[in-house]
């Protein structure tokens, strides 16, 4: 295994040998530190990732991880409400935050010489938030309006919420990150503080600093500001309810008058990238590309958009950059006059034919080249690199896993793809969703 690896690496062109320069440390209190050097511009991205996301929320309190993210911009013992962002802006920087199923992250992009100030403020709000009941009341209205904007006003988002809820029978990935509306309405100060006190601690956090910095300097600052914070000794082991064996396919029709064009989605439960075990995930990246990556060259695109005018849009995608379970999915928008059942049958026919045929070696080579090139293009975006490491480490992957990933992608074979396709494309582990404006379209 190892030898094969080395040979493949050498076969790559010289340009692929370029990689980001990464240095890692662990502070005494357990906090991980990742430094990525990029000296092209005197700018730094400072990101703090907490290894907690919506899938870690207590039952009945969906949305609390994201709600807390909003409230972290309120007052602390030394900062007034809003002062954090105002200070970043007054230093010519931008800041924001985001919440996912597996992580919550805060970031600032500023001139490199302002890094210390960012660390000072970010470390302060890890332990010293002073949220009031009034903050909770007002900000709850804001997250409800956010849900209105992202989800309630968008039939596609509402449909997706239904499909995920059906795909995950036991895991919290079936609950929306922003929360179910009725639970969001009940979130209170205690919900928020309980979550904050338990999970916001240095031994549950990853610091990623990327840009025009010296790793040793970053370490010194990190020790000064984050290293002094106490580790949380009550931090629970991160074990979330896993999916049982799934034994029956699920079918859903979502009807909403705001749907302009009927379409269908099929989602399958799939393996995710795991520490030291990323081969199946890598093969699934190829499977998605081959089946539905580009409308011009993928199996679904060629068959349904070119050879027959069955669909105006086809896609296959895979997301395995998750802690627990990945999702492999298809979506098809039929041409006017083609019913959803016809489109679904045509889709299944294409997928079955793909599984029975040989994979075209030229397509394999093309995908390999594109994946290799994407690593070169990725170097142009230092914030993207920072995000890659932060997300990976908060989903239990290691720096080594991140750095091996491009090589694992290069080493995927036709047999790997066939094997993983046979495993994943199992209707018993799937949801098929139809999205229509009225029942007449559901045929």
């Amino acid at each position, binding site marked *: 295994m190892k030898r094969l690896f080395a040979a493949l690496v050498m076969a790559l062109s010289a340009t692929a040998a370029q990689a980001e320069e990464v240095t890692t440390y662990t502070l005494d209190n357990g906090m991980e530190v990742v430094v990525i050097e990029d000296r092209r511009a005197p700018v730094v991205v400072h990101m703090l990732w907490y290894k907690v996301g919506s899938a870690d929320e207590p039952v009945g309190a969906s949305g609390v991880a994201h709600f807390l993210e909003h409230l972290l911009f309120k007052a602390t013992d030394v900062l007034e409400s809003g002062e954090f*962002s105002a200070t970043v802006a007054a230093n*010519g920087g931008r800041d924001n935050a985001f919440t996912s199923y597996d992580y919550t992250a805060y970031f600032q992009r500023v001139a490199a010489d302002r890094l210390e100030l960012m660390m000072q403020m970010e470390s302060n709000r890890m332990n010293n938030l002073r949220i009031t009941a009034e903050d909770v009341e007002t900000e709850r209205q804001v997250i409800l309006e956010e849900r209105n904007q992202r989800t309630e006003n968008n039939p596609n988002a509402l449909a997706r919420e239904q499909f995920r809820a059906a795909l995950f029978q036991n895991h919290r990935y079936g609950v929306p990150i922003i929360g179910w509306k009725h639970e969001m309405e009940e979130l209170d100060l205690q919900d928020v503080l309980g979550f904050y006190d338990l999970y916001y601690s240095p031994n549950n956090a990853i610091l990623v600093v990327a840009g025009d910095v010296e790793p040793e300097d970053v370490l010194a600052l990190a020790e000064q500001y984050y290293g002094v914070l106490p580790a949380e000794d009550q931090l629970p082991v991160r074990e979330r309810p896993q999916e049982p064996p799934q034994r029956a396919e699920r079918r859903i029709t979502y009807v909403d008058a705001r*749907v302009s064009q009927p379409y269908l989605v099929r989602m399958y439960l799939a393996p995710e990238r795991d520490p030291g075990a990323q081969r199946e995930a890598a093969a699934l990246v190829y499977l998605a590309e081959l089946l539905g990556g580009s409308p011009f060259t993928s199996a679904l695109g060629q068959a349904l958009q070119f050879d027959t005018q069955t669909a*105006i849009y086809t896609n296959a995608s895979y997301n395995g950059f998750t802690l627990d379970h990945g999702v492999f999915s298809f979506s098809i928008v039929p041409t006017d006059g083609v019913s959803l059942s016809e489109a679904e049958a045509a889709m299944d026919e294409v997928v079955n034919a793909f599984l029975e045929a040989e994979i075209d070696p030229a397509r394999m080579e093309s995908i390999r080249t594109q994946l290799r090139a994407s690593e070169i293009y990725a170097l142009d975006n230092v914030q993207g690199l920072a995000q890659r490491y932060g997300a990976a480490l908060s989903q239990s992957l290691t720096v080594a896993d991140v750095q091996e990933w491009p090589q694992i992608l290069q080493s995927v074979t036709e047999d790997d793809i066939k094997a993983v396709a046979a495993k994943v494309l199992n209707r018993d582990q799937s949801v098929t969703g139809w999205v229509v404006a009225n029942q007449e379209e559901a045929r």
Partner: protein
Amino acid sequence: MLRILIALCLTIVATTARAELDIKQVTSPGGINAWVVEEPAIPFVALEIRIQGGGTLDLPGKRGATNLMAALLEEGSGDMTAQEFQTTLEDLAASFTFRAFDDSMQISARFLTENKEEAIALLRQALVSPRFDQDALDRVRAQVIAGINSDAKTPNAIASSTFYANAFGDHPYGSSIDGTIDSVTALTRDDMFAAHRNALVLDRLYVSVVGDTTAETVGAMLDDLLGDLPAEGPPLPDDVAFGLDGGITVVDFETPQSVAFFGQAGLKRDDEDFFAAFVLNHILGAGGFESRLMTEVREKRGLTYGIGTSLVPKYHAEMILGTVASSNETIAEAIAVTRNEWERMAREGVTPEELAVAKTFLTGEYPLRFDGNADIASIMAGMQMIGLTPDYVVDRNSFVEAVTLEDVNRVAAELLQPEGLHFVVVGQPEGLESTQ
């Protein structure tokens, strides 16, 4: 052959960050001007081309032609069908995007150093000899029509299209660049060739190149890439006055959250008060969490997830535009607060503290924009389109610094028209009705 007109190492100085940018201004042997930044650190090149005109060049009765033409440039050219073209592009691991906007065509390319000759040859073929095959035309037409149908049921799209239709009527700004179902259905191959002939022309084309290349080689590359395009295109349309008076237009749509698209007349990019207005708008509605509108509508009252405004100086008209979304029960209050802030700003102006904070942010943030080859290429093409010179990247912060409290407050009083502000609201807003 190649003349390098200017080769300056420009240092963008701010109180916080400095960015060094070595912009070389070159003219190709064939007379094509370009701005070049050599950045050998990563082995790829970002190329950005803008051509003035865009959707405003649609011929009478052919609304949507330029947009459909742009979408077809990746669908077959030279002796390649759409699939052959895309297979070649994927094998090169390059990416090309072709988009039409109201006032311009935008062509962005990204390709590896190791196969840049092949990538340029392929891009040339797409730009100079598109095929517009009937099957590709029909396929992409169906996609465009699906988008038009979707917009007709999307509150944000309904709000903006209603606003523009009421503000600009028959001028191209008054309708969507996508066209209507009727106009797009009627478009033919001949219409595509005509749109291509009119929209891709040399005399209003702007180019920037950033990455692993040299200014010495860019001229020949550009002649090869673009030299066969026609020299000139048809005249651009006339300027148009912003035609909406103050008021409210409600468009009934069954959805829980109302979406408002609002605005009033603005000022030109080359107006001597532009920077004062830019700083003013930042304080009013563009400054993220710190803007007055975000503070009043979101932070204090929880009425929205986001509200923002921007100066929109288009080629033929100028506006200040904003958006806000709030539940049907609360949108009336969100609009009342917005109007009130508009009026307060016109009457009181900003405080010296607000001005100082805004300047620190705007000057400090500017160098951070020059982040990555593709971003730099895009910024430089945009600068050329509005007639700026490379010195602007150095001088720009001094223009911001030069804005005085008196300037901002005079412009606030002159420019902001609380009574002239028009809101188009899509949803079922409680307590709001269309004004006459």
